[in-house]
């Protein structure tokens, strides 16, 4: 008893035992930290790798002795790594991009650091961007424009070159206008004429006359195009590669030049911005490894928006019936479980379904019904952006239904009763009071669906995505919106570049840059939706009590 009393009475201060839960708090914190670190690491990797691919690097001219010979290699270092030889020794190895694929097939070479005898950075070297064969690294010698030869040593060389490049750009645009639009229009008319003739709505004589007319127009345009093309071939650029070979490029094939070793920091930043802009706004070239990704951005955004246009009303209506009207019994329970399970079905399965149902069944039906004159060439009975959007809206439907159901059930009962007590019918109460109040929750579902849909690739490969789409799904050719067209998608673009490209090394920077872009596009779409939701929240917020 006395010993008991002499013990110091236990205070209320936290002691070891009462903090039993603390390690678990640490565990949760550690879990979150790990998650954030992983997400951040992924983003940083893509940001650095993708961003770095735009930065113009210095061109090294290296004298390399190996395999008993000596050679000169000019290029910029893209990677440095350690290589382990079979004998167990380590060698530092660098990967160099030397371009000039027309001169030697491998644009990338690996060099052991110990083989490099000397490195120099001659300021005169130019990085030349071309329409074909990727970039070239050359020493300028001279250029020939309008029959006049200007040596690289002369002061006006740079300005004349720049003027020539600018005019070549304009001429190429003219050529595109003629070839794609005007000639395209004629060939479309010819095609329509042929169909009309076959179906008998236009008499053969009339058709022949019109055809001759069109043919004349066509020849005129072709002649125009030939003249322009000649203009493009008129000017030449002469250069010398680092290993001394003479090269000649028609200036019409050149996109731009950059004196990488001469440029200061600000010129480099300018060049980087220029490269970024062309990446965002231009069409891809050379099996997608060069040029921009504009059609892929456009396709991704269009497909995602069209998908949300389909999935939102569909999902909301389904959820309203399920939550508000259906008798809550066994059947509804089964439906709800099925909807939830639909979210777990592998996306490629949706692709297969989309191909079978939308493309072959619905699309084939539309062709039979509306485009029978074009058969056997399918119009809608072939993968396209409409079917891709519909397939993805099916894929994301459960997300919207579940979110909408939650939002509807979160609307306080008092608000519904108030509406009914005012003489509203059940539908009026839902439409005027319940739906507005649950709109933020519904939009959260739409945001989730958009995020899921924008990142999905597998099903799209079956229902509409292609490696290279010649034209956008929305353009200036009547009827302006072409839901039957195939389209490009950033996600598929990444896959295509990374795994299907002829030169995986050359494509690597573009893969990272495209991945970065895909993230940016998804974030931008989500941000837009979140901003809309927050505005609605302010307008329709239900008082909290």
């Amino acid at each position, binding site marked *: 008893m006395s010993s008991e009393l002499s013990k110091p009475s236990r205070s209320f201060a936290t002691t070891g035992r009462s903090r039993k839960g603390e390690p678990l708090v640490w565990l949760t914190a550690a879990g979150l930290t790990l998650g954030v670190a992983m997400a951040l690491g992924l983003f940083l990797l893509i940001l650095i790798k993708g961003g770095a691919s735009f930065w113009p690097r210095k061109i090294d001219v290296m004298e390399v002795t190996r395999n008993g010979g000596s050679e000169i290699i000019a290029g910029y270092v893209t990677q440095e790594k350690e290589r382990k030889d079979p004998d167990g020794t380590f060698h530092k190895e660098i990967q160099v991009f030397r371009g000039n694929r027309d001169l030697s097939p491998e644009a990338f070479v690996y060099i052991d650091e110990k083989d490099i005898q000397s490195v120099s950075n001659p300021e005169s070297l130019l990085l030349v961007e071309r329409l074909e064969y990727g970039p070239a690294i050359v020493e300028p010698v001279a250029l020939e424009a309008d029959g006049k030869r200007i040596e690289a040593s002369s002061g006006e060389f740079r300005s004349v070159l720049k003027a020539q490049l600018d005019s070549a750009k304009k001429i190429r645009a003219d050529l595109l206008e003629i070839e794609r639009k005007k000639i395209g229009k004629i060939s479309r008319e010819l095609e329509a004429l042929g169909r009309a003739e076959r179906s008998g709505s236009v008499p053969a004589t009339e058709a022949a006359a019109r055809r001759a007319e069109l043919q004349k127009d066509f020849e005129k345009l072709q002649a125009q195009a030939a003249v322009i093309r000649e203009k493009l071939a008129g000017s030449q650029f002469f250069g010398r590669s680092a290993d001394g070979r003479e090269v000649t490029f028609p200036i019409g094939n050149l996109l731009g030049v950059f004196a990488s070793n001469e440029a200061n920091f600000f010129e480099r930043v300018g060049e980087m911005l220029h490269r970024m802009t062309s990446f965002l706004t231009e069409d891809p070239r050379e099996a997608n490894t060069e040029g921009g990704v504009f059609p892929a951005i456009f396709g991704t955004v269009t497909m995602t928006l069209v998908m949300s246009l389909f999935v939102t009303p569909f999902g909301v209506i389904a959820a309203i019936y399920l939550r508000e009207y259906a008798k809550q019994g066994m059947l509804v329970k089964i439906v709800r479980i099925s909807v939830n399970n639909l979210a777990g079905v592998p996306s490629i399965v949706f692709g297969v379904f989309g191909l079978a149902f939308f493309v072959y069944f619905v699309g084939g039906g539309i062709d039979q019904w509306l485009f029978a004159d074009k058969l056997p060439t399918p119009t809608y009975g072939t993968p396209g952006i409409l079917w891709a959007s519909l397939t993805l809206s099916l894929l994301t439907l459960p997300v919207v239904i579940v979110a909408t159901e939650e939002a509807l059930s979160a609307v306080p009962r008092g608000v519904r*009763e*108030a509406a009914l*007590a*005012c003489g*509203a019918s059940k539908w009026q109460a839902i439409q005027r*009071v319940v739906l507005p109040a649950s709109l933020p929750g519904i939009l959260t579902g739409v945001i989730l669906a958009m995020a899921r849909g924008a990142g999905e690739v597998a099903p799209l490969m079956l229902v509409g995505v292609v490696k290279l789409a010649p034209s956008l799904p929305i353009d200036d050719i009547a009827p302006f919106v072409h839901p039957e067209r195939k389209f490009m998608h950033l996600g598929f673009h990444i896959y295509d570049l990374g795994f299907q490209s002829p030169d995986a090394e050359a494509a690597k920077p573009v893969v990272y840059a495209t991945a970065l872009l895909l993230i940016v596009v998804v974030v931008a779409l989500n941000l837009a939706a979140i901003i809309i939701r927050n505005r609605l929240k302010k307008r*329709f917020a*239900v*008082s909290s*009590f």
Partner: protein
Amino acid sequence: MSLSSSNTIASDASDFIRVDDFSFYYGAKQAIFNVDMAIPANQVTALIGPSGCGKSTLLRNLNRMNDLVEGVHHEGDIRIGGTSLYDPSVEVISLRKRVGMVFQKYNPFAKSIYENVIFSLRVAGRSKKSELDETVERSLRASALWDEVKDRLHDSAFGLSGGQQQRLCIARAIANQPEILLMDEPCAALDPVATLRIEELILKLKEQFTIVIVTHNMEQATRCSDRTAFLYMGKLVEYDRTMQIFENPSKPETEAYISGRFS
């Protein structure tokens, strides 16, 4: 249980609302047992009783709000102005246009003050601007809110204080000019000052409407009701003039309840 014998108030509409041998069941559970009541027009009738005694259930049957609950059924009848609520020709929606309701927790819609008031007109498909404007002003004046909100009619209703929101709900309930106003503990979520304002309002509104109010507050019942019904365990124990009930209750249960011996 029949009406108390002392219940002979001289009024030509002394049985405007007539509850006839009314029983009500939630599934198998009976909530109201054979209630008989005559509620006179243009008076305030208070329903009091401990929690779960069925007073809210009874109130919510007057505009058939309980129809929303699954598995309910009733016996007996309720008539308003001689017409049975359960007559097959009566449409619930038109009934609710004649019987407005104010709830325990103020529940304005996530709309502007203006749109809240005219909600019942909107759902009735009326959209004449002059009529709507006139309704808003009349209803807000009647609910003593006009002077406070006339300059911000198009602001969100959630910007108002709790008492103002409840008065807005009253304005909303009377906008379509119903004959009866049901109030289910309208002051339960309000502070004493706001409560007092609502009570003043109730006294004013009874000139136009027949008011049935459920309350837990004995003082409130004495202050603003003309008649009081005491319900206990789903049965109508006593129904009489308010003065009579509070000063000289005829049943021992009533006395026990109003003097606070059980609740």
